[in-house]
């Protein structure tokens, strides 16, 4: 068996070269898997919307019309429900590709329109939270690993276990009560102070849009409103990243090349920064992608409490009112965002660590 990185003797053209290059092969394979999974995600939402909740005709027509077989037949024909399921799936996909995710029964707007305003709000929140979690989580994880089995490590273990154990929705309620209601140090709910006009739409992220427009009072208001919900969301991910960074750093600390670096007398700081951290960050990148999924889950439970008009609050409202098209829209969008993030992480992983590509 020849190693996969061995240069081919029969390289005839650019395309062939591309397919032979280990990194290109790796990227192609990961992208193909992600695209297949994206179709899988649509299949899941299709099955859940069209097969599980009984008869769509009954759900949409109401009690009176159900009594009249002619009306039901008409409805079925009109919506393609008389077609076999695979044909219905193709129709469903066709609608999806045209951006038709159905209409929310609650807002009476196309789900896509609702999502277009909700997604940037959530990305702003989740982005802030993942940035803060990465900084704190990696720092705490490194400290825990360097102080292995000492008191600091034990304390950090308790802190990170607390972080992954605390119910996010409860922490949000507690934080809102203490910092807004009792202490009055946090601004109230929402993305901006009441009555403040949002900045001109560029990215949909209020902080960036306000900064671009030079509206500093709006910027500070947006940033201030971001702090508390973002911090609540970080509890889980900081716990996750601390534990994972700790074990990643411990793995690397045991490697021969680290021992060699120590043995030849390099200062501890050089060993840590240039030998240990660089290698340990590779697996941490993967976990950051998974942590992002945890954050998206967290937003569903947190946003409703802070009245943050994002995906989570939208999901909460549609789930509590059993607004199925809206719930499926959220599932679809979040599934695809999550897949994209993990594809990006995979690619980054392959770029950073050459060993991954040849596996």
């Amino acid at each position, binding site marked *: 068996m020849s190693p996969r990185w061995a240069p081919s003797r029969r390289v005839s053209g650019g395309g062939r070269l591309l397919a032979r290059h280990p990194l290109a092969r790796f990227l192609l394979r990961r992208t193909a898997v992600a695209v297949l*999974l*994206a179709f*899988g*995600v649509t*299949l*899941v*939402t299709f099955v*859940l*919307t069209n097969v*599980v*909740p009984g008869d769509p005709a009954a759900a949409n027509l109401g009690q009176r019309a159900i009594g009249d077989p002619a009306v039901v037949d008409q409805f079925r024909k009109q919506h393609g429900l008389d077609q076999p399921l695979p044909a219905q799936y193709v129709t469903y996909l066709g609608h999806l590709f045209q951006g038709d995710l159905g209409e929310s029964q609650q807002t009476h707007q196309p789900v896509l329109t609702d999502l277009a305003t909700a997604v940037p709000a959530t990305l702003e929140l989740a982005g802030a939270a993942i940035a803060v979690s990465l900084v704190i989580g990696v720092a705490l994880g490194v400290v825990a690993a360097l102080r292995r089995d000492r008191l600091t490590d*034990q304390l950090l*273990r*308790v802190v990170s*276990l*607390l972080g*992954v*154990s*605390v*119910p*996010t*929705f*409860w*922490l949000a*309620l*507690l934080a*809102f*009560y203490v910092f807004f*209601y009792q202490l009055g140090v946090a601004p109230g709910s929402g993305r901006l102070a009441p009555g403040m006009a949002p900045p001109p739409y560029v990215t949909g992220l209020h902080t960036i849009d306000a900064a671009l427009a030079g509206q500093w009072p709006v910027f500070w208001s947006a940033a201030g409103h971001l702090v508390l919900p973002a911090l609540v969301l970080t509890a*889980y991910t900081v716990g*996750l990243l601390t*534990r*994972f960074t700790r*074990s990643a750093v411990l*793995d690397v600390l045991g490697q021969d090349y680290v021992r060699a670096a120590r043995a030849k007398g390099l200062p501890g700081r050089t060993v840590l920064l240039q030998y240990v951290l660089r290698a340990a960050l590779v697996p941490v990148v993967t*976990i950051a992608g*998974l*942590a992002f*999924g*945890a*954050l*998206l*889950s*967290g937003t*569903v*439970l947190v946003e409703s*409490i802070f009245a943050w008009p994002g995906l989570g609050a939208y*999901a*909460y409202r549609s*789930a*509590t009112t*059993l607004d*199925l098209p809206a*719930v*499926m829209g*959220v*599932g679809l969008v*979040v*599934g695809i965002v*999550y897949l994209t993030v993990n594809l990006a992480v995979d690619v980054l992983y392959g770029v950073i660590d050459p060993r991954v590509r040849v596996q």
Partner: protein
Amino acid sequence: MKVFRFSLLERLPPAWRRPLAVIGGAVGALWLVIAVACPLIAPHDPLAQDLPRLAGPGTAYWFGTDELGRDVLSRVLYGARVSIPLALLLVAMSLLIGGVLGACAGFFGRWIDETVMRIADLVFAFPTVILAMVVAAALGASLENAVLAVLVVAWPSYARVTRGLVVGLRTREFVLSGRLLGFSAWHSLRVDILPNVLGPLLVLATLDIGTATLLLSGLSFLGLGAKPPTAEWGAMVAAGTQQFDMWWIGVFPGLAILTVVLAFNFLGDALRDALDPVTARTLGAEKERVG
């Protein structure tokens, strides 16, 4: 490297070397006792609406009363009867389903492996709460459907871990020699493979009790689980969000969730460390996913 480090830790009896495991075990056991004995302990009927409404915590009602005049303490205690058995049942079922599917995938390989693992991949393509929420909403809001929804998102991690372990074991000499002696696949799985995968799976299951509790109470918080009169912790926190200034309505049930989840995570964490480092690492990677 200090060679002669005096270790106080090693002089302690084994249990005390892992104080977190001891605390976790004690708190977990306490909650189990509460779940069994709550009719004896609870000062009031958890469903009776006969007390003064929205009374603050005090000597009369330790945890206060809620918006319908029910005793919060009694409701929190009775809540253990909903969340803990359901979490245990959920974990047992995902262990069984995920374990059997994963073992078949790992042992027989080929199309069984492909089918099971691709379905697992599909579940992993969603963040857990989102998929559980979508499934629970599609099935209709009820506690049974919430359990089913959590089951849908929970089994694949068991399938992955089991498959990984079984693939490693399948070609070991003691398994192969058994097959050569004429063991059937089923016999080989039961006699040679099962004892070797049970340990890591039980650790994963212990850690998963906390996750299952969080997911279930989260779904109830969203209104997709327990129906209103039921004393369920997540639903009680949701009621607390309606009365921001009456902090006790939401805070105490949340504390109950936190202590239960923390107890099982303390236990699971200690068990994971006790396993050999290699399996501990693969298990760790599997657990970190759950969000």
